[in-house]
């Protein structure tokens, strides 16, 4: 705040007004100061602030003193702001409202809106730097900012300052986030008790509804489309875990939750889609093509096992080109149907053709 100088507010020759905005408050760094309601004017050379109540109170900084500017979006109960980072004040600066300040930035708070347009215009002026081409009176020129020789030192200090501020901003952001979270929590609890008082114990959202919603029905139809080819490529059957990975990898964003997937799959049969969800005794869940007949596959599994004499799930999986998980399920089903017998030892679970059935 020590960069501002008192001014009459009158524009110099060659200095043109670009935009002005009422209802602007100035902050010294993060601190509120007494300059809480003024008109902010942007000219080709300066940023001028005049108190709305006391027109005699008028101050300005040169645009050449600005290092860079940032926007700060509006929040709950907070106006949108522009953060203006400044070069240090030159030693021969004219008197202003503050002799010294620990902050090297100020904030402009737009309580009556207008921040977006003002920021745009200020950025434009900063880019075009028209003040360099349009010389004005001596009194303005002495405050031109750092002399060329000292630029490097100021630059590094300026960068370090910016980094420090950025760090503080980040810390502030995180603590602000936690603060906002606790406020949100209170509001949520309040809302929930309100609902409770209305007799609504469990709000009906898509979360609690489970399967059967429009969303899941649509999703089921989508899945039928996406999974047709992959299923055909994998012998007509895939575990739900495989489906989860395949679908979410393809989507990239707006991913499905595991519950979404399960709830959608539960509707496949009801919607007469060409796929269905099947749950094995072990709890393993798979998606099958309607045309896929696992019981028929069991017959061919029996052939394969007979050819080899006996097979473990791993061996069978490798032979047939299936995942071990699904291979095991198929062998277990074959066993359930009486076609295979198991030999369960420390060496592993091995399946044999059920000779009790065939040779009795």
């Amino acid at each position, binding site marked *: 705040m020590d960069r501002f100088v008192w001014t009459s507010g009158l524009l110099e020759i060659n200095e043109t007004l670009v935009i002005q905005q009422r209802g602007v408050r100035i902050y010294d760094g993060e601190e509120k100061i007494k300059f809480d309601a003024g008109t902010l004017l942007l000219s080709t050379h300066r940023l001028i602030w005049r108190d709305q109540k006391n027109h005699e109170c008028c101050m300005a900084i040169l645009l050449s003193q600005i290092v860079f500017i940032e926007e700060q*979006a509006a*929040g*709950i109960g907070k106006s949108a702001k522009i953060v203006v980072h400044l070069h240090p004040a030159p030693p021969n600066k004219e008197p202003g409202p503050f002799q010294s300040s620990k902050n090297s930035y100020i904030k402009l708070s737009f309580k009556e809106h207008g921040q977006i347009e003002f920021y745009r215009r200020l950025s434009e002026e900063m880019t075009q730097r028209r003040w360099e081409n349009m010389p004005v009176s001596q009194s303005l020129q002495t405050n031109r900012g750092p002399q060329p020789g000292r630029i490097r030192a100021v630059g590094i200090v300026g960068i370090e300052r910016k980094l420090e501020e950025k760090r503080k901003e980040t810390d502030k*952001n*995180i603590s*602000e*986030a*936690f603060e*906002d*979270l606790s406020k*949100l*929590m209170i*509001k*949520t*609890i309040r*809302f*929930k008790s*309100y609902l409770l008082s*209305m007799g609504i114990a469990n709000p009906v*959202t*898509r*979360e*609690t509804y489970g399967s059967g919603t429009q*969303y899941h029905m649509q999703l089921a139809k989508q899945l039928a489309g996406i999974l047709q080819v992959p299923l055909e*490529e*994998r012998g007509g059957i895939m*575990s*739900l*875990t*495989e489906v*989860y*990975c*395949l679908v*979410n*990898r393809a989507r990239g*964003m*707006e*991913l*499905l*939750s*595991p*519950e*979404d*997937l*399960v709830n959608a799959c539960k509707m496949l049969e009801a919607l007469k889609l060409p796929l269905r969800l099947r*749950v094995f005794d*072990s*709890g*393993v*869940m798979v998606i099958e093509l309607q045309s896929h007949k696992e019981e028929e596959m069991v017959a061919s599994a029996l052939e394969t096992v007979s050819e080899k004499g006996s097979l473990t799930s791993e061996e069978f999986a490798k032979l047939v080109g299936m*995942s*071990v*998980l699904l291979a095991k399920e198929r062998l277990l089903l074959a066993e359930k149907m009486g076609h295979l017998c198991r030999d*369960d*030892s*420390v060496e*592993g*679970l091995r399946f044999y053709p059920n000779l009790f059935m065939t040779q009795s």
Partner: protein
Amino acid sequence: MHRRGVGAGAIAKKKLAEMSKQLDMFKTNLEEFASKHKQEIRKNPEFRVQFQDMCATIGVDPLASGKGFWSEMLGVGDFYYELGVQIIEVCLALKHRNGGLITLEELHQQVLKGRGKFAQDVSQDDLIRAIKKLKALGTGFGIIPVGGTYLIQSVPAELNMDHTVVLQLAEKNGYVTVSEIKASLKWETERARQVLEHLLKEGLAWLDLQAPGEAHYWLPALFTDLYSQEITAEEAREALP
């Protein structure tokens, strides 16, 4: 005389209007929060924990559905669902080494490696939450507390209390023996043998008959030597077709 604005119908209408207003207000609050802090949720594991705890306190599961109020607004869902995919892939790739049982530490390391150096920070708490969601897929994801950490089970092997407690015993040295089980758990030989046999059958334990003294039953999931080993290209290929 008929007085308007009075009667059950009018009261219900008023209540409905009030509720609508409350809902809108709440939605706005949530939207404000979301627009300000969406990034924070994605970047900051500690903030995620706080957020999840808050939701648990008020009985909300923000991860139940990708189309949910919370997950749509804050994008929390995508973070965890994608993590779920990565967890599945790591577990599948390493299954032939450890039988489908892996420590949370190793899983964490492997997942971080897979995410690359520009990915967001992922904590063990994040992994646990993602795994809890994966249980819905029915393929046997389980979380077994052992020692100071957890073993993550990713195959539908049946593990009852007996199996779990033996796993916990093995966590100290990476292996366990029948004598150890009998001494610590006060079981009979037969019970210990059965449990160990089951672990062998499921591929979760390896039998070492050349160990000094009696047979050692090793749990590959607990081998710290294997932690640093990369998932090979072939393992990655075998993991998912």
